[in-house]
């Protein structure tokens, strides 16, 4: 007997939904007045598959560029000499590269003592890089992969420019000496990597692991007496949307992730289970929950209190990213776990300079297609033999 409620990562929702394992929630949601307008678009969109709602978001996250303001400001003159403004975040990928080069510190052997930016530090979201280049990975309408789109390839050419510039060995040295995530010696927290693509939890981690970086001007206890706009000056670090390759056409691009709650098909008490889901979705409950997690709210309506009392000083940046039309969730192919493993291999090949991005992505396209075709073939055979396939070939 399946449980009444289950929790999943958003990226696994489609795998379960497409295999008929989840209860569609549209009717139950409508009864409780939960619908498209309840949510910020990205978070509504990620819980829907083929026109049906399969889950509700519990805690969401938006990924942004976190940078070490102190390191940047210390290089203020150099920045200005290069025509860069050290008081605000980089505005484009090209500008981010310039920042990275200025912030790099290498010794005479080429070893990295401080990195400006590294695509693999921590590299959790490296596979979504094409989002910032206007690239698409998967088209759900045509069920086609788009790994060989020019924009996707450009994204990975950018990624590969880092190992090319810094050297494969220097990068492997740097990462093997890096302190683990969640320790004060992890590169961004220790100040040995100046910019990272990370989520809102950094607010908690920075304060717990390097409290001094959150009390640059005044102690945390009296921070609330600062005017709201001045609050950010108390922090040695800052967060902003990761800039796009072409900032004139793409703004506030982000990868939107979330934990979702759902009801398995065959659950004994779907009505009661949804009562709980609706309770979690209530604005006050949602805001309390996500304040605790240092995360933004997935709901369209946000109270002033939530923003004012939030432990993350950059919560409004995250709120803005979450509301952005360029906030994009994980791609929705029904066999995402397997495709993700292939994708990971391709990124490895690119980052370790084994293949050119074009070659690697062309190979990936073939592998992904073959895996998807095999999946469709099995689904078709299911249909022939038992009539239970949940998905047919397009």
């Amino acid at each position, binding site marked *: 007997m399946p449980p009444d409620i289950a929790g999943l990562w958003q990226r696994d929702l489609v*795998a*379960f939904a497409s*295999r*008929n*394992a989840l209860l569609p929630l549209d009717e139950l949601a409508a009864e409780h007045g939960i619908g498209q307008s309840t949510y910020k678009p990205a978070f509504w969109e990620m819980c829907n598959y083929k026109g049906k709602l399969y889950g509700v978001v519990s805690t969401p996250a938006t990924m942004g560029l976190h940078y070490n303001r102190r390191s940047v400001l210390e290089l203020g003159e150099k920045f200005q000499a290069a025509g860069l403004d050290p008081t605000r975040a980089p505005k484009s990928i090209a500008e981010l590269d310039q920042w990275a080069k200025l912030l790099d510190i290498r010794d005479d052997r080429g070893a990295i003592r401080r990195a400006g930016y590294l695509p693999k530090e921590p590299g959790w979201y490296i596979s979504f890089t094409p989002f910032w280049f206007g690239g698409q990975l998967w088209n759900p309408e045509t069920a086609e992969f788009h790994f060989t789109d020019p924009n996707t390839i450009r994204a990975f050419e950018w990624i590969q420019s880092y190992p090319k510039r810094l050297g494969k*060995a220097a990068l*492997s*040295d*740097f990462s*093997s*000496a890096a302190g683990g995530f969640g320790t004060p010696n992890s590169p961004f927290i220790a100040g040995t990597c100046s910019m990272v693509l990370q989520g809102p939890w950094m607010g908690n981690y920075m304060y717990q692991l390097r409290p001094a970086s959150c009390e640059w001007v005044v102690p945390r206890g009296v921070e609330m007496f600062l005017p709201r706009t001045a609050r950010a000056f108390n922090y040695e670090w800052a967060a902003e949307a990761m800039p796009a390759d072409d900032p004139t056409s793409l703004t506030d691009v982000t990868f939107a992730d979330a934990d979702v709650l759902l009801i398995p*098909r*065959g659950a004994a008490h779907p009505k009661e289970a949804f009562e709980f889901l609706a309770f979690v979705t209530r604005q006050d409950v949602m805001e309390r929950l996500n304040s605790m997690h240092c995360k933004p709210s997935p709901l369209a309506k946000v109270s002033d209190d939530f923003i004012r009392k939030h432990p993350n000083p950059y919560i409004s940046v995250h709120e803005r990213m979450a509301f952005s039309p360029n906030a994009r969730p994980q791609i929705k192919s029904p*066999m995402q*776990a*397997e495709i993700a*493993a292939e994708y990971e*291999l391709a990124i*490895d*090949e690119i980052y*370790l300079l*084994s293949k050119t991005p074009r070659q690697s992505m062309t190979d990936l396209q073939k*592998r992904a297609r*073959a895996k998807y075709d*095999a999946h469709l*073939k*099995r*689904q078709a*055979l*299911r249909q022939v*033999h*038992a009539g*239970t396939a*949940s998905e047919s070939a397009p």
Partner: protein
Amino acid sequence: MSSRERQNFVKGLLFVSPWLIGFLVFTLVPVGLSLYYSFCDFSLIERDTAGKTQAIWVGTENYRQLFQDREFYRTLKNTGLYAILSLPAGMLVSIGLALMLNAPIRGQAIYRTIIFLPSLVPVVASAMVWMWLFNARLGFFNQLLATIGIDGPAWIGDKKWALPALAMMSLWGVGNTVVIYLAGLQDIPRDLYEAAEIDGAGAIRRLFNVTLPMLSPVIFFNLIMALIGTLQVFALPFIMTGGGPERSTYMYTQYLYEKAFAYLQMGYASAMAWVQLLIILGLTAFAFWTSKRWVHYQGR
């Protein structure tokens, strides 16, 4: 059957019944089921209109897809390569150690204990220790190499070195095998050596003409056990490299595990399991076949 025989039959069955039940439930039925599943599409979570999960017969589709699957060949190749690297090295090292440990010298007990201890270390813990030893910059090996001016490789972080590095670390756990060889060496009658010495055989000839032939049944036993174990290698690469870098250490059992529990293709995984079983059985049968030529049983 006489009544005594019948009585014994019932008694015997009663005594072995725990194993018999276990064999039926945990071996025979699962082996049969997995053969059946290997001809099915079965995703564990996929539900039909009645809300039931079930395996749906798809004929030989899994096997057909398997033989066109590049990962199948890649993992097979990696596993084979690992076996080719670690099996002979393991045998040589363990026989060599056993010979040395068999010599009547002072401190034997201490030597034996030190060689044996690593084989007691849980696999997860030894994975952790070796990951740390292999660390590209702070690891023991590369720091040692750095003191003599050599820039060591990234070991398990380098696709050329990762598999040999794993094979190298597998030598750390040969203690078990060494003990079995030692016991085997004790079994060799002294008079054989004496006779050989009277014939004027030197140490090398005694090794090849007396020790190794007499030890061959034990070598054969260890070979079979190592073969079965090595072809299923999973935990060490899974923990240490996750199959990387660039899938250079992606092993067959890890692919099988991921097919089953990460990609939820139980049927496909079962087909993989059956291919694995057939390969292991085939190699074991081959080893038995060749054993007639090189394994000498005493008194036969």
